[in-house]
């Protein structure tokens, strides 16, 4: 069961990106590209979300031989609802506004 906490602007951006395709697994690099958050900031957020059990992770076998397996992320079922609520509340408070996502 996850825990709800106060979220930063960058965390809200990551949650928003993960909510774009809610059920689909996403890679770290593509999340970084879509949110423009550098890896040094993105991964601590992902680690924290995983610790709070908002994030589900799994390893994906490499499609190209010789490459390492890649890590995939998506929001858990309950966390999706909470993320939407947090994003909505943050927008109402004018604390955060969504960025333009790539199509």
């Amino acid at each position: 069961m996850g825990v709800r906490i106060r979220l930063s602007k960058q965390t809200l951006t990551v949650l928003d990106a993960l909510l774009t395709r809610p059920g689909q697994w996403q890679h770290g690099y593509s999340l970084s590209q879509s949110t423009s958050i550098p890896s040094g900031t993105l991964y601590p957020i992902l680690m924290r979300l995983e610790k709070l059990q908002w994030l589900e992770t799994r390893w994906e076998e490499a499609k190209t031989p010789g490459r390492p397996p890649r890590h995939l992320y998506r929001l858990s079922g309950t966390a999706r609802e909470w993320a939407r609520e947090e994003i909505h509340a943050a927008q109402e408070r004018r604390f955060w506004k969504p960025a333009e996502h790539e199509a």
Partner: protein
Amino acid sequence: MSVANQERPAVARFARWLLGCAVRHWPEENRAWGLALAAEIDETWSAFETLKWSFGGIMLFSRSVLSSVWKWMKLPAGSSLSGGAVGPEGSSLLPKRSRVFTAVVLAVAALLLALPEGREAIRTVRASWQEYGQSDSDARTLEKLAARAKKEKDASTLAFVALSTGDPKRAEVLTDQAVALDPELIWIYGARNHWPKNDPPRQDWLARLQAADPDNAVPYLLEAHAVAGPRVHNLYDHGTPKDADFEVAESDSKWMALMERAYSAPRYDSYFQRHYQLTRTLWNREKSLSFVLVLSGLWSHAFPSLLNLRTFADVKIHEAQKARTAGDWKRAESLLAEVDAFGMRMAAGSGTKIEKVIAWSVSRRANKEMAVLYSSLGKTEDERRATLRVEQIDSSFQGLRPGHDSADHERAQTFQREALLVQGFGILAVIAVLAALAGVLMLELWPSRIRNAQTISRRVPCWLADYGPTTLLVASVAFLMSFLPFQRAFEEYRASNYALLNEERLLDSMWGLLEIPQYVTGVNAAVSIWTFVTVALSALLLFVLARGFYRMRRTVAKPA
């Protein structure tokens, strides 16, 4: 197309290599995240992107390492993040305090001792264990001072170093440099103590000093001591000197001429006051200087030789006795008055105890003989006057004896008690730091050996790591607090003009500190150490017997 498929520039290759290194050293508990970040590097689109991604990876790595270190620090010494140092029976036997606690307590203790007050206390106590001798570090400090003074053409600092250094050749060079820069400092020619005999004062220095200060007896006395041959030095070798011994001494014409000049000189000044002012000014300017360094020059100040003065006084008195026997009582009276007058001049012009004692001793001998002379002449009034003078001198001697004044005695006793505390807490702090380091290092360096050791061998390092740092902190605070009276004595000495009272306070404080080191390193060290060992072993034996008795009673009280 990802950069993986392109030709990789050197900077991108370097970024990958760097991230690879980071992953290899990533903390165990979140290494998976490092692998996840590193796996994405093949998806980057350009060399710049690769570099940026790696930089983020390094940031994450640093953060993970710091977080891991912090977690490790929060554990007790000897334990690891994966869980270690567990006893053979599975029971955990680790120190109770965390590494953070140990590190913070040790750091606070180190900080306290690194404060200027702490450094002064350590320097002083360390010096007391070296019998207040100059250390190698003191010699280096003097050299640095001399180099700076030479560069800045600071004559007084050069003079200070010349009077303080233990190297006679260096002292000679520095003395000349100081006087060349400031001729007013010519008195330093007569202030450096030139014993042992292989470091005699230079004749040209004494000649220049006599020319610059012709009315002062001291330059003549210093030269007389330097030129005195064995005929003078050996006067008392066979007990009370006889007529022949005096004749031998009197035949040293150069010595006799110099002593005559000294005895007839209108003034006596051993330059101690000037030396003191020079030292005080420098100590106020260079407050971080060790007091041993500052005072060593002052305490080895050149004073005229007691033996020399006594010998010449006895030669004069012997001459007076001969004149009395020959019936020339006027000459006898004149010779004795000459000796007495010199003694009084010397006592009036001297600022130190030792000089006063020498002066009174000379004067006393003359007055005693004068009483005999007047008695033989039947001059009762003059005899009474001379006897009274002898009594006055004796009473002055009494006044200078240690413990004569109850306030002085009390002060010396207080310093002795406080010194015991200072040395006690100092020793406790040293033991505590060694114990804490030993405990922590044993637990950190050989955790598996400690893990497999007997219970008592595991308990001791844990106990040392737990209580060593706290004991060190408490002992350091107590050490600094107990040193405060000594610091005040130094401060008063540094701030005051020269006065015997200030010097006595300082000396009392310093002799007090010597009390314990004398037991351990003095001539009776073996006796003290064996006494300590005997007492300690007896206490241990008593403890073992008492414990055995107690256990036996418990066994009897609780039968199986």
